[in-house]
């Protein structure tokens, strides 16, 4: 018995590892089998009966294919050698239409007020596999609506199709066992466990995986119809896990953040804190133009003047200068590459280290949360923002040098320098000893109040880049929003500073930077380095596609 089996699905041959479910094998040859209860991130339950197909097993003794005695659900049936699967026969189509009919008889069909409408599997499958009028002439069964499950989730029992994805999630993934299905038959409803507040960090995932609008998020409730949303691949910066996400935005605002499947980083899920990160992003204080506190430049210098001045100050430090560069674990790998070059090569071995921008956050747990609340420490270090080998000073040493008045030019990226001092006042006192402080930041903080030059940089939602998580997996985030004011892309800005300082940037283009960092530069980054964000085939009917993690 080999580990691989070969089977035929709709006439297409496919070889998969033994133990693969037929529904997954079919996906590999581009055959989408409709389903509700099946989810690749959860144990199989097989209760929706939507994925029934004509599965014929090979009987070696009779040398014949035999159809299954009862129609098989492909989400549970293992692929077998020489198996034949037909997913588009009339019987299979009828079976799907039948299941759809049963699912819909007691469904309230309140799509107009349902937040899931537009990315609802029930809608999609109805369009594709049923499309009939309801034959029900009796009254529908009524169940509790608007039942809060904790503070973040609202349950609507009438919409629920009892696929048990949510209960399986709480039972097997978050292992909190908050949800269960009580009662029998068509009286069954999902219930929150008595006394449970359903306030763990992963509750919103049950809304993502809910194939219908039974579980909706209070955060997204009534906010926006999903077909108005644009989806941009992004990465969560809440901790060093770097969950791959999709930023759903409409016009200039992010409306919600959803997880994107990437098996080696975050699987299918993400935490609630990561979803809420857009709120803190919107709350940051930004500057729309460079701010200067030196007389030569005036209060509001142009970018050209500011860069020329900053480059000149850095350029002065070329020969054995007193330049200290403090990077940030929120930089992208490409920016870190250029910053390392600027400090190490252009300005001849300046003192260089990274700080902790964010020190507070949610405690680590077994599922996704990590201890480090900055996204890219590993990547920035790998890209070369490290204390130099010769005469290199780490952050503590740089702080000492600042206190001793040895540092003449201090270049800081990002916020949070005060985290390394006892208080903001202490930081101000220390920094006052440095003649030139240049801060490149996407948010204003205590340092911005005293720095000689503050240059606005785009934040993660406004620029392209890659982050590398603590396990070494690189993820790419993309530009979702229009930049705030004149804020500049960090990579371009640092390259320009290299030039202004009299040197040359290490790479010319963003792509070259990726090549230099050896992050699959030649292949399509979206498919290889990032989590795949696959859409269900039927979900591209009219200017919408799914924002769920569903595969």
């Amino acid at each position, binding site marked *: 018995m080999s580990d691989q089996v070969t089977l035929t699905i709709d006439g297409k041959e496919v070889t998969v590892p033994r133990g693969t479910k037929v529904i997954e094998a079919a996906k590999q040859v581009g055959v989408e089998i409709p389903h509700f209860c099946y989810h690749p991130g959860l144990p199989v339950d097989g209760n929706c009966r939507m994925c029934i197909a004509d599965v014929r097993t090979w009987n070696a003794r009779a040398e014949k294919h035999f159809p299954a005695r009862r129609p098989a659900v492909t989400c549970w049936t293992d692929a077998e050698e020489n198996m034949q699967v037909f997913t588009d026969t009339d019987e299979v189509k009828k*079976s799907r239409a*039948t*299941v759809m009919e*049963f699912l819909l008889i007691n469904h309230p069909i309140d799509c107009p007020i349902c937040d899931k409408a537009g990315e609802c599997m029930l809608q999609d499958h109805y369009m594709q596999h049923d499309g009939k009028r309801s034959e029900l*002439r*009796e009254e529908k069964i009524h169940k509790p609506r608007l039942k809060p499950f904790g503070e973040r989730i609202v349950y609507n029992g009438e919409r629920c199709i*009892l696929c048990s994805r949510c209960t399986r999630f709480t039972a097997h993934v978050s292992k909190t066992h908050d949800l269960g299905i009580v*009662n029998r*038959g068509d009286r069954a409803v999902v219930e929150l466990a008595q006394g449970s507040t359903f306030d763990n960090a992963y509750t919103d995932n049950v809304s993502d995986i809910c194939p219908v609008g039974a579980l909706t998020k209070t955060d997204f409730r009534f906010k926006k119809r999903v077909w108005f949303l644009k989806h941009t691949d992004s990465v969560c910066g809440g901790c060093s896990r770097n969950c791959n996400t999709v930023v759903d935005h409409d016009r200039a605002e992010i409306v919600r953040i959803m997880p994107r499947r990437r098996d080696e980083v975050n699987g299918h899920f993400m935490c609630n804190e990561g979803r809420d990160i857009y709120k803190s992003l919107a709350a940051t204080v930004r500057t729309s133009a460079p701010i200067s506190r030196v007389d030569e430049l005036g209060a509001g210098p142009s970018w050209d003047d500011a860069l020329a001045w900053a480059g000149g100050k850095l350029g002065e430090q070329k020969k054995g200068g007193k330049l200290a560069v403090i990077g940030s674990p929120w930089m992208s790998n490409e920016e870190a590459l250029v910053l390392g070059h600027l400090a190490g090569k252009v300005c001849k071995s300046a003192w260089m280290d990274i700080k902790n921008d964010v020190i507070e956050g949610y405690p680590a747990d077994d599922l996704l949360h990590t201890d480090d609340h900055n996204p890219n420490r590993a990547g920035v270090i790998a890209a070369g923002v490290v204390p130099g080998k010769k005469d290199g000073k780490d952050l503590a040493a740089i702080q000492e040098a600042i206190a001793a008045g040895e540092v003449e030019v201090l270049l800081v990226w990002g916020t949070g320098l005060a985290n390394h001092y006892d208080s903001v006042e202490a930081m101000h006192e220390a920094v006052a000893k440095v003649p030139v402080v240049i801060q490149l930041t996407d948010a204003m903080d205590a340092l911005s109040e005293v720095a000689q030059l503050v240059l606005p940089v785009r934040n993660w939602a406004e620029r392209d880049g890659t982050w590398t998580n603590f396990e070494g997996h690189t993820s790419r985030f993309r530009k979702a929003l229009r930049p705030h004011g004149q804020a500049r892309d960090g990579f371009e800005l640092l390259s320009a500073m290299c030039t202004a300082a009299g040197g040359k940037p290490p790479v010319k283009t963003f792509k070259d930077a990726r090549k230099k960092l050896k992050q699959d530069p030649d292949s399509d980054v979206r498919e290889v380095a990032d989590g795949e964000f696959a859409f269900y085939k039927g979900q591209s009917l009219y200017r919408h596609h799914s924002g769920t993690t569903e595969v």
Partner: protein
Amino acid sequence: MESNYPVKGKDQVLLNFERGTESWPLSSYLTRGGYSTAKSVLSGGKYDSPADLVGVVKASGLRGRGGAGFPTGLKWSFLPKEPSGPIQLVVNADESEPGTFKDRVIMEENPHQLIEGCVLSCWAIESASCYIYIRGEYVPAIKRMVAAVDEAYAAGHLGEDIYGSGFTCHVTVHSGAGAYICGEETGLIESLEGKKGQPRIKPPFPAVYGVFGYPTIVNNVESIAAVTYIAHAGADSYRQWGTEKSAGTKLFSVSGPVKRPGVYEVAMGYPFKDLLENECGGMLDGVALKALIVGGSSVPVVNAEKALKINMDYESCAENDTLLGSGGVIVIGEGTCMVRTLMTLLRFYHHESCGQCTPCREGTGWIERIVTRIENGDARSGDIDELYRIADNMELRTICTLADAAAWPTKSFIEVFRDEFEAHIEQGKCPHDNQFPDHLNLRGGGKPQRHADPEHAFIA
């Protein structure tokens, strides 16, 4: 041995006791030769190996008495050669099929034969533990079984090292909570494990992955009790009754407007006509036979003409478009409204659907509502076809067979008694109102009404 029960042949397999006496204590069973078979088998004299006994059971042609009729010996042989853990035997005493009450008689009147059968079966499949899962409503049966097991432990017929043979067998009596779905073997297993009684998706079958994940054999009470006889008398002796494919005797629980309803043990292949006339004393005066449900509520109904042609075995039932099922013979007399009968059945299935699979969860409630509407006279002409179509759609699309069990009678009722359904629609009411003989009082009072609050419709 004299009995009120009419028997075929002297050696009754299952009802081998005198009716009206205290047949359930160990002492009574011992007088009937109880535990002698176990002793002889366990001490090694009778069969060379457990496989021999499995072979004998196979050769006896014993088919599962729970309803499906799967050969018991064959089922035993499906156990893996290298089991992943201790093999478990589960006796399915969750007898909740409407119209069936045969296992109750065994457990109440002859519990030790079941226990002996458990010991023998455990020996045959090399298991050390046996669970008897009894329906929660069978309180007297549970009491008697518990008492009987205690007696058997005390007398050394159960427990460690029985009769010094080195064979250990523990029997646990488990009381269910009265859910129909727990009569399905995987649902029973789930319930036995302490979970919500919902059928598991198959494969793996219980023989590979059953109770607590161990290889498990689930058998009906009647089958296990019959094993005692087969182990004692051999396959040929058992085959003296019945037909080629349906060997042995079978209990039939007859209910309905007959003179003597009850449980009768007859050989397979015994004509229904004889069962009705001889054993049950014929139909009640003034009531003619209208229809017959031969094997519990789940099987298709047949009309009187066909019913009188049926012999009580698997093949004859199949020839007459029905199934033998569990042997719960429901006799339906003239004057009974078939729509109301179906409605009653479907209320049961709607109530008992576990709610796991979509077609069953939604379909049982739907067809019940349609039939209720037909019965109340609110239906339209297309509703019969609609009903048939829904029932047809429910069939074979679920994990377990509960949906089929609801669909088959629905379809057969329409096929056989379509004119009655149409009469309901044409007249706008039930045409059978007040047509029963008053003394029968077979109908409850008032018109059937759906409960206003469906969530509490069937709970109170």
